[in-house]
């Protein structure tokens, strides 16, 4: 036993040494603390940024908006640049956690990001004062052509008993209710109790048919032919199609959620100048292209879009749909604590049935 522990300790230390001691590189121009979704950036772009600017990037990741928020609010770690989603940005603005951007210091942002994305951003960032779009997309139905032989055009197909135990729904409050509300023709930002209860009842009705409520697992499960239909984010759809050519993605006719994840600068940021340099760098066409290739989530960067070589992808309806063709497209707004609490209570009711 003792020998084992001794050997173990030695191996540990060797492994630790091998995995590299701290970098003693000099970063003359300071640091920038970045807080982003997991796996949401091409690490090469960070290296390139560090080389070009001499600013060290301290990179941290979160998995949901809701786990990110308390950390920024508590101010225990001062992040300089964060990448929240639409409604969360609005919540942060309402709670005075963000600072207004100096657009003069981020020229690439105004130049390269398409105007339509700024228009959509007005839903959560009125006047476009706080946020620079980074990635965007839609939410739709991913279906397996070999398991579904009718045309998929409406959210209501997810209630079809034919597909019992073959339906995957999103395991998050707003996303789940979005499907319910949209299929009833209501706004996904509704705070009307009657409408919400109707949606809740509809979703409870659906529950026996649902195979699982998933977030990211929808990707692997659809690739593995586990289910016929799944609600998925457009960025994932491209990846799944590459792995399983039987999969198709469609935006239902009732409309859907057009989401945008944007860069913001928190009020308590300590390296504002470096933050601006970072955002500006990320808005460069070539950098945005690198990120798009890596993450497969749509980029709002028109300069990058022009650089895409593969015609199929550049014209892909999934990656870059013509939004004017669809009705009922909305972006999530922050609904306030009380409405949030109502949503949560109703969601718990659905989950506990």
């Amino acid at each position, binding site marked *: 036993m003792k020998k084992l522990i001794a050997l173990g300790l030695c191996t540990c230390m060797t492994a630790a040494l091998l995995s590299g001691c701290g970098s003693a590189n000099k970063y003359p121009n300071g640091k920038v603390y970045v807080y982003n979704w997991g796996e949401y950036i091409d690490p090469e772009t960070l290296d390139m940024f560090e080389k070009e600017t001499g600013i060290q990037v301290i990179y941290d990741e979160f998995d949901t908006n809701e786990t990110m928020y*308390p950390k920024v609010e508590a101010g225990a770690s001062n992040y300089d640049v964060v990448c929240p989603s639409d409604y969360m940005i609005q919540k942060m603005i309402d709670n005075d956690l963000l600072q207004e951007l100096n657009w003069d210091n981020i020229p690439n942002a105004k130049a390269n990001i398409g105007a339509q994305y700024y228009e959509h951003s007005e839903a959560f960032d009125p006047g476009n004062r706080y946020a620079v779009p980074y990635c965007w997309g839609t939410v739709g139905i991913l279906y397996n052509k070999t398991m579904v032989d009718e045309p998929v055009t409406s959210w209501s197909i997810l209630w079809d008993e034919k597909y019992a135990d073959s339906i995957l729904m999103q395991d*998050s409050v707003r996303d789940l209710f979005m499907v319910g509300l949209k299929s009833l023709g209501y706004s996904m930002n509704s705070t009307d109790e009657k409408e919400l209860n109707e949606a809740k009842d509809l979703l409870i009705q659906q529950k026996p048919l649902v*195979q699982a409520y998933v977030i990211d697992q929808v990707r692997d*499960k659809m690739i*593995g032919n586990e289910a016929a239909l799944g609600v998925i984010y457009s960025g994932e759809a491209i990846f799944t199609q590459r792995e399983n050519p039987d999969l198709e993605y469609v935006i239902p006719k009732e409309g859907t959620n057009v989401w945008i994840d944007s860069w913001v600068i928190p009020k308590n940021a300590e390296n504002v100048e470096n933050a601006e340099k970072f955002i500006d760098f990320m808005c460069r066409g070539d950098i945005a292209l690198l990120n798009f290739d890596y993450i497969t989530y749509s980029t709002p960067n028109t300069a990058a879009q022009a650089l895409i070589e593969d015609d199929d992808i550049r014209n892909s309806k999934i990656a870059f749909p013509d939004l004017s063709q669809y009705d009922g497209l909305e972006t999530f707004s922050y609904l306030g604590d009380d409405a949030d609490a109502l949503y949560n209570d109703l969601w718990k*009711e659905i989950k506990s049935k």
Partner: protein
Amino acid sequence: MNKKMLSLPYLFWCAAFILIPLAMVFYYGFTDKTGAFTLENILAIATPEHFKALRISILLSLIATVVCLLLAYPLAMILARMEVNTHSFIVLIFILPMWMNFLLRTMAWQTLLEKNGVINSVLSFLHLPSLNLINTPGAIILGMVYNFLPFMVLPIYNSLTKIDQNVINAARDLGANSVHTFFKITLPLSLPGVISGITMVFVPALTTFVISTLLGGSKILLIGNVIEQEFTQTGNWHLGSGLSMVLMLFIIVNMILSAIFDKEGEANAL
């Protein structure tokens, strides 16, 4: 070296890192968003959804604990009979899977249990019917048992190895057969280990949420899910703390049980 001084480091640690944080949880549990005193966070356990979640959690944890016990006890007995110098080897063989990341292991179970997963692929290869394994309460129990089995085996194994062989021999000499010996001697003497194992399985199983999300298809709402959501999704730390305080009742029950069954303080967990 004053004997009293010896306890100071740990007492300080307890106060700073266990009691004070606990007090904060209590503070959150007893207040609402405005800071006013309220009991509603604790009483919230009585709402239909929360209560159902608690009931199901208790039921599943209980079943998982019993299954663990039934699987672990014979295993511990077999291992206890092995040679002494393989003792550490055995302990490590059981701990080894725990060094693989918990999330990865649970996701690996998905690959095994899915409709088109490994198990069903093997079954269809043998022309046997597929099983609906994943996204069921059974899968959750399997996940719990898988994760907590080592915690049940090791304490029982430890207490079994401590039983003096002479006592067993004496019983045999006095005419008892194996079954008799087991129920009158072995089982009672191994009780501290069993209690220890039950504690280390039941209580953590009660608060798990990853297993029900990954293996249960997130269709079953466990109390662990509720608490996790209150802290991470809803941001209602008051409710989350209140509900956690209710769960702490189980900790208190455990302490009482230990005090009763373990008068000598022989709680040998590991």
